[in-house]
Every structure is written in structure tokens, then in C-alpha cells.
């Protein structure tokens, strides 16, 4: 079985800016894959190269085994891309836009699937509305619908929830999860790291056009992030305790590997005669992983 996406040694320069630097990446069929990185890391360039909108200077990209340059027709039929920018054609209604997009892929009679997409994205009541009349969130839904009209096995969502309300996020993720469960490969870029943590089984992090971390979400959390005992105390911590933690905004944070260490820590604090005013256990999260990876800290 070929990989859903295979990216080999892809480089791309825009003038003196190295947007992508020998990127190697493979996404397996059926995966829910996250592509993370700060602004300008090369995520959108990589997606654009995959979609044939950007031609790489070196390397090759394949979608379901089809080269995106040499066998572009097959590659594009297998790929659905939700672009980052909120773009739309102001001349057409929602349904016209979807029918036209189906036609571009050679699909003539697609009304049943279009109705299903409209229903799943909460767009049925807007089907005959002109695109200009829709709110930003509704336009974003139509963008998702347009990427799905040809039932692509690989779906790339480039920051699909940027600036949209909670309701759309929930609707969208429920639908995308169902598509993933039905076998579609999903590649997601987002700045909402909580979304990526909840949805993606594997994550790549890009920095300055290079892949700086690539692993399962669980492994990344294990490698780069730890649990921490966070507390506020009534007095000053003695120096032998303070050097094991870090203080921020009145809260002390003590990282630990195993829960048995919590008991020891609490006993030391009690023995030092400090009163505990508040206490919580901090769980590892992707935001911490992201910050540490981008700061170049090894796991």
C-alpha cells in the first residue's frame, strides 16, 4: 500500500528566503496528521507544493503514489485542499460553486454527495445564497465543502478554524473525524495546539523550512513535556526546595516523572514549614512541546 503522502528532499527558495529545506515526510493512509510550526515555518509552502501551486526547486512529492508534477491529474484527483485564505467566487451561489468545483474534477452528477456535505457542514439553508451574502464562518464552511466535492482520499486543511466560532469548530471536527474514521487521510495545520493534540495521531513540526520534530503525539508529549506539581505557598520556600522548581506569577512549579514523587515533594514542603494555599497537577501539553521544540531543546 502506497503512502498517502510521500515528500522526499523537497526544497524551495523564494529569492533569498529558504522556504523549504530538504523536507522529508511520509503520511500513511488513514492517518490524522498534524503539521505545526510558527508563521513562516513553511507549512503553507509545503501544502502548496503538494497541491501543485508551488513548484519545488528540488525533491519530489507524491499523493497516493502519484507524482504531483509528472502525474498531476491523478495526484490532484486524490487530494482535497482547504486553503488558508478565505477566498470565494462572488458570482455564484453555494450550490453553484460546489457543482462547478465537481465539474472541474470531471464529476457530473454529484447532487447527492453535495447535499450530504451541505448537511454535515450546516450549510443546507444557505445552499442557494450567493457567496457574498455569507458570514466569514459560513464562507469557511463552503471552502471545506469545495475541498470535499470529489471525495478525495487525502484531505489537507490549512488552518481551517482560524477566526471561526466554537460551533463551526465542533461541527467541522465532528465531520472531519467521521471522514477520517471512514478511511480518509487528514493533514491539518493549525495554530490551535489543543486541537492538534486532540485530533492528530502523529505530528511534524517545521521551523525555518525544516522538519525539527516528527513523532506520534503521545511520544512527543512524553519526550518533550512532563507533569508538574503546581502550588502557591503561604511563606518563602527554602533554597533547597526552590532550586528544584520554578516560580511564575506566585505559583511554584515542580516537574516530576512519576506520581510517587508528588508525595515526597509535599513531605519536603511540609517539613520546611510552608503552608500550601493552592495546589494542582499540570498535565503535559502540546503547547509546551511546541515551545521547547522551537527553542531547540532536546527531549
Amino acid at each position: 500500500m502506497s503512502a498517502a503522502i510521500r515528500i522526499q528532499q523537497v526544497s524551495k527558495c523564494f529569492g533569498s528566503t529558504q522556504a523549504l529545506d530538504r523536507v522529508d515526510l511520509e503520511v500513511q493512509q488513514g492517518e490524522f496528521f498534524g503539521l505545526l510550526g510558527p508563521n513562516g515555518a513553511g507549512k503553507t509552502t509545503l501544502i502548496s507544493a503538494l497541491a501543485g501551486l508551488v513548484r519545488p526547486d528540488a525533491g519530489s512529492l507524491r499523493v497516493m503514489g502519484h507524482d504531483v508534477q509528472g502525474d498531476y491529474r491523478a495526484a490532484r484527483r486524490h487530494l482535497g485542499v482547504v486553503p488558508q485564505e478565505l477566498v470565494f467566487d462572488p458570482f455564484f451561489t453555494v450550490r453553484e460553486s460546489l457543482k462547478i468545483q465537481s465539474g472541474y474534477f470531471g464529476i457530473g452528477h454529484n447532487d447527492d454527495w453535495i447535499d450530504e456535505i451541505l448537511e454535515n457542514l450546516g450549510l443546507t439553508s444557505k445552499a442557494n445564497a450567493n457567496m457574498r451574502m455569507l458570514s466569514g464562518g459560513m464562507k469557511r464552511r463552503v471552502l471545506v465543502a469545495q475541498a470535499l466535492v470529489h471525495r478525495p482520499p487525502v484531505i489537507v486543511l490549512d488552518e481551517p478554524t482560524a477566526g471561526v466560532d466554537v460551533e463551526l469548530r465542533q461541527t467541522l471536527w465532528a465531520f472531519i473525524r467521521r471522514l477520517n474514521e471512514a478511511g480518509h487521510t487528514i493533514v491539518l495545520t493549525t495554530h490551535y495546539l489543543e486541537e492538534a493534540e486532540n485530533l492528530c495521531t502523529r505530528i511534524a513540526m517545521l521551523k525555518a523550512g525544516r522538519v525539527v520534530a516528527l513523532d506520534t503525539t503521545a511520544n512527543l508529549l512524553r519526550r518533550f513535556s512532563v507533569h508538574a506539581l503546581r502550588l502557591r505557598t503561604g511563606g518563602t520556600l527554602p533554597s533547597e526546595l526552590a532550586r528544584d522548581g520554578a516560580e511564575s506569577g506566585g505559583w511554584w512549579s515542580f516537574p516530576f516523572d512519576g506520581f510517587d514523587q508528588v508525595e515526597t515533594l509535599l513531605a519536603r514542603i511540609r517539613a520546611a514549614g510552608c503552608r500550601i494555599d493552592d495546589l494542582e497537577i499540570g498535565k503535559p501539553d502540546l503547547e509546551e512541546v511546541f515551545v521547547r521544540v522551537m527553542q531547540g531543546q532536546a527531549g
Partner: protein
Amino acid sequence: MRHGGFSTLLYKEVLRFWKVASQTVAAPVLTALLYLLIFSHVLEGHVKVHGVAYTAFLIPGLVMMSVLQNAFANSSSSLIQSKVTGNIVFVLLPPISYLEFFLAYVLASVVRGVVVGTGVLLATFWFAPLTFAEPVWILVFALMGGAILGSLGVIAGIWADKFDQLAAFQNFLIMPLTFLSGVFYSINSLPPFWQQVSHWNPVFYMIDGFRHGFFGVSDASPWLSLAVVGTCLALLTAFSLNLLKRGYKLRA
């Protein structure tokens, strides 16, 4: 709904201009009608060209000018709008070849040009007795002229990054070429120097060949006009296809 990238893109481009027909069809017909009313009022009775009354002579010129200008406007405005708003991505993501892309935009331009040209003809032929001496030439030059300006529109739409760049292309190239091509006069009435200059204007051959279809007489042989127009179409097609194949300003 049509099947396939080419036919859908062609359908979309035609639907796009048809949805705003008052602006893309009715307005240019009205403009041509105003030209006819003004020029025929001033010159009818004073000027005869090739033995044809001035108003009758003017009508085919106005029809062809409308075909050409609207063919250019269709592809160029569609592309620049799509580029500026970003929705060009909807055409670039599907499996549409650069040849299909080119043909769809050019044919849609021809359709708009012919629709507007027909509208101008229907609105103006009441004003003078028109003949259709050799209708094949009318059809050939209308289609080829529309295709040439449609191709130029593709080139301009791809090249321009902003609306004012496209306006410059239209104002400083397309308008002078069409207005100085013999729409309103026979180039035989010009001084020898300007006659020579006119012979370097390919739009002159489009107008002259088109007019030959109505009256059976023209400034140049229709076969010469066909050769010039055919060569222009081949060159512009090759140039446009080269741009599209390289992804110039469309695929980074």
C-alpha cells in the same frame, strides 16, 4: 452540469459574464449605438466608402470593435479578479491542464464577443441597409478576432498584478489598436504614412476582413487579412500556452 475540467471552466466563464449581462452585454451595445448615432449624424451624406453609405460602412466596424474589446475584457477581467481575490485557486487545484485552461478562457471570450457583437448588429442594422455579401468571412473574422483578443486578455490577466496594470494594458494598447484600425474610416482616406502605419496594425486586418464579409469590398484582400490574423492567433496562442505551461505568475 457539464463534465470535465475544460467544459466546466468554459461554462463557468460564460455563466460569470451572463450573470452580470447588463454590465457585460447591454452596456457595450449601448456604447456602440451611441457611437453610431453621433458619427452617422455628423458624417452621413458627406462620406461614402467603397461606394457604401457611411452609416452602413460604420456598422460592421462597430460590431467588430465590440467583439474584440469584449473578448479582451472577458478573459482579462476574469483572471485579474480571480488573482486579486485569490479564488483562482479553485481552478488551479483541480486536474485541469494548461491547454484546457487556455481554451476555456479564450472560448468564453469568443462567446462574449460574439454575443455583444450580435447585440450591436441587432441594435444598429435598422439605421442603414446592410448586405451580407460573403457571410463566411464575417464568421471567420469574428471568431478569429475574438480568439486573438481573448488570448491577449489571458496574457494581460496573467501578467497584471493589479487592476491599474490591466487598465494600462487596455488603455495604451487595446484601445489605440482598435480605434486606429479603420473602424470609423477607410485607411485609404489617410495620408500615405498613416496608411503604412495602419498596415502594421493587426486589428486593421480583423476589421477589414470582417467588413469584407458584408460588402464584398475592402481595403486589403481578405486572404491577406486571413493570413495576418491567422499568424497573430498562432503566435499569441503559442505565447499564452508557454506562459501557462511555465505557471508564470500562477504557480510559484
